[in-house]
């Protein structure tokens, strides 16, 4: 019974069927118990002898009238047949009989077997499945009928099992309710288990979101630009807003025109790092201004990490709180300057010094932000901006004067010399002296007219030697272009340097700017253009371009004015063919060689085409040229060379290929 019931449960998947099955099983639980008790024994005895079966089932048999069983002479086969026939009547599947009958109407006869006997357990196993299947169908469609049918079937058996039927009804009803209830519960429980937790969608707080975004941005920028990340993170909202303003207002990485003036001042400031409190004031001004602007420049300089200590010191200087620490900073720039002087020529010295000072200033600017003196600096920024603008303008004028001086205008030179002298008085000790030395050294050639030009040319050559990016210093026509980019570079470098200098007094800027200006001016002097024309042009050229662009401007210009094969291409091809490391100077020679080669080539082609009476160069002319050069021989036709050296696209254009349809590509 129990296995039978379990079968019913397992075999059915639908609830309905389950209910019905449970109902059935429950009923079967009830009924079979009773029926089996009564009929089980006779069934069991049937296994021993067929007589018991007949006696127990004769009355229950409804479907097929059994022939008089001859128990004595029955073969086991016959006995089994009888059992099979009679099983449904006796087994606990009493309620199923009624359903089975109903199912039989719909479906063909199903073997009805009762699992009452031990020996027939196999059959009953099959039966429940089949019956379960049958009942499955049944129960799905006719749930209500099953009960009535069951009752009918139960009533039929009343004469036999009246007590049982009544009991069945009561017990069945009870069991049905229980089973149904039990069935319902698990499903509902299961469903509840499958239910997901309700999602709590918080309404998006726009303000909080935007605030968070801004915080993220500022934090990120602070990390990028500020040296001390913890300090950056610790900066208050005021600082952050100021940083945001500072950073957002100027997203340019490189110097802007407005900065140049400030840069000039700042460069001077940087040179006077070690100077006293008056210089500290000006440095504060310049530093504050630099902070506002060259936040972007910081990344360009990229010397943040190494300068944190210096920066911290500079911050203190700016706040006028720890003036003592300035001494630490001051020894550094003079040391740099001295080192530079020793190593390089006069021209390069101020440049390098400017660079160092720039970097230092930049670092100072960064650190200032780090320390969080935003509010204090803001005020200073406004003040310093104004002051710096004025001083920058002065510096500009001075630079112009310096440039004009180089062209040989005595008045300008006199005035130029006079102004630096005045500045010397103002400027501070070591740097001032060093600058003055440079100044005098550079100004001395200015006094001589013609010598100035030669010196400028020499200096220009020196510059070219120092700066590796320029080609062919021999070419005089390129000097015009060279001078302007040179001056641009110089002026560009000074702004960067100026940005770096945060602590320098304002007055030191013109002094430092002057040697730079002079240095830039000397190359310009080589070209006897109008002094004022060159100076504003150089100033203008310097303004829009970044420090990197001047390096690029010259080769770009050269290419447009005089077309040349790009040096990078020549380098690539030559190094590929030579398969060995090549010295950089060797590339220069290769470039010169190629230029001469092109000249020769054009001459030859002209000769060949004119010999053929044509004005245009054709393929035949080139082939003749190659033949004469020894590249094309009888053994080595031109097409083979084309195939070997040129990429496929060009080969397709040059070598006619015959394709189907009497076509030749390219068409001749």
């Amino acid at each position, binding site marked *: 019974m129990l296995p039978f019931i379990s079968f019913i449960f397992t075999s059915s998947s639908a609830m309905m069927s389950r209910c019905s099955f449970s109902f059935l099983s429950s009923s079967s639980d009830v009924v079979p118990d009773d029926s089996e008790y009564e009929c089980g024994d006779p069934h069991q005895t049937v296994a021993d002898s067929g007589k018991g079966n007949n006696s127990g089932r004769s009355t229950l048999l409804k479907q097929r009238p059994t022939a008089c069983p001859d128990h004595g002479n029955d073969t086991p086969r016959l006995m089994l047949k009888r059992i099979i026939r009679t099983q449904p009547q006796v087994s606990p599947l009493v309620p199923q009989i009624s359903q089975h009958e109903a199912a039989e109407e719909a479906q063909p006869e199903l073997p009805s077997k009762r699992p009452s006997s031990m020996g027939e357990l196999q059959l009953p196993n099959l039966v429940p499945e089949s019956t379960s299947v049958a009942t499955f169908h049944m129960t799905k469609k006719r749930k209500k009928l099953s009960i009535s049918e069951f009752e009918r079937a139960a009533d039929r058996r009343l004469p036999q099992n009246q007590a049982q039927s009544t009991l069945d009804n009561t017990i069945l009803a009870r069991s049905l309710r229980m089973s149904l209830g039990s069935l319902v519960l698990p499903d509902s429980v299961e469903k509840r288990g499958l239910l997901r937790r309700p999602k709590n969608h918080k309404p998006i707080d726009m303000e909080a979101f935007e605030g968070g975004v801004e915080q993220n941005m500022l934090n990120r920028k602070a990390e990028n630009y500020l040296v001390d990340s913890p300090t950056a993170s610790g900066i208050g909202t005021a600082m952050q807003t100021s940083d945001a303003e500072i950073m957002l207002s100027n997203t340019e990485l490189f110097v802007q025109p407005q900065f140049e003036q400030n840069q000039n001042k700042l460069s001077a400031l940087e040179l006077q790092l070690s100077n006293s409190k008056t210089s500290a004031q000006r440095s504060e001004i310049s530093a504050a201004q630099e902070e506002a602007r060259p936040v972007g420049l910081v990344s360009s300089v990229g010397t943040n990490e190494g300068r944190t200590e210096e920066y911290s010191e500079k911050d203190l200087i700016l706040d006028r709180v720890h003036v003592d620490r300035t001494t630490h900073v001051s020894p550094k720039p003079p040391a740099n300057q001295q080192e530079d002087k020793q190593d390089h020529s006069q021209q390069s010295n101020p440049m390098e010094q400017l660079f160092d000072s720039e970097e230092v200033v930049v670092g100072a600017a960064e650190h200032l932000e780090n320390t969080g003196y935003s509010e204090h600096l803001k005020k200073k920024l406004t003040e310093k901006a104004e002051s710096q603008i004025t001083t920058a303008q002065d510096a500009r004028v001075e630079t112009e004067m310096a440039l004009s001086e180089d062209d040989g205008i005595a008045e300008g030179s006199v005035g130029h010399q006079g102004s630096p002298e005045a500045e010397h008085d103002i400027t501070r000790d070591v740097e001032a002296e060093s600058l003055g030395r440079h100044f005098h050294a550079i100004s001395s050639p200015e006094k001589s007219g013609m010598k100035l030009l030669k010196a400028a040319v020499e200096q220009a050559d020196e510059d070219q030697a120092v700066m590796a990016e320029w080609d062919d210093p021999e070419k005089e026509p390129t000097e015009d272009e060279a001078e302007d980019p040179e001056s641009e570079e110089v002026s560009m470098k000074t702004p960067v340097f100026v940005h770096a200098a945060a602590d320098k007094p304002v007055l030191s800027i013109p002094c430092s700017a002057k040697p730079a200006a002079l240095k830039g001016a000397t190359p310009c002097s080589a070209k006897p253009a109008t002094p004022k024309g060159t100076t504003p042009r150089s100033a203008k050229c310097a303004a829009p371009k970044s420090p990197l662009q001047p390096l690029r401007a010259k080769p770009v210009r050269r290419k447009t004015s005089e077309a*040349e*094969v790009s040096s990078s291409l020549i380098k690539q091809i030559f190094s590929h063919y030579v398969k060995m490391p090549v010295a950089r100077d060797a590339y220069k020679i290769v470039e010169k060689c190629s230029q001469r080669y092109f000249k020769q080539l054009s001459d030859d082609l002209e000769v060949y085409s004119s010999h053929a009476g044509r004005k245009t160069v054709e393929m035949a002319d080139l082939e003749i040229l190659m033949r004469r050069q020894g590249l094309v021989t009888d053994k080595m036709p031109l097409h083979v060379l084309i195939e070997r050296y040129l990429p496929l696209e060009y080969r397709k254009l040059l070598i006619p290929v015959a394709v189907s349809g009497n076509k030749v590509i390219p068409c001749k």
Partner: protein
Amino acid sequence: MKRTAPRSTLRKIIKKHKPQLRLAANTDLLVHLNFLLFLHRLAEEARTNAFANKSKIIKPEHTIAAAKVILKKSRG
């Protein structure tokens, strides 16, 4: 990786040297081919010179000597 031939640049160079001279359709490709072969010969000569000097790198003097020879050769 070799790049494409600077066709317009080559045309400009020739135009600069010989303004009255015209170029046919794809002749600048052959000019480029010529230029490549020239550089190839120059490179070989420079390599030979470096080997002759038992030097591991190409020095300017090697290239100068090589240029003299090859330019003479490619005069046509």
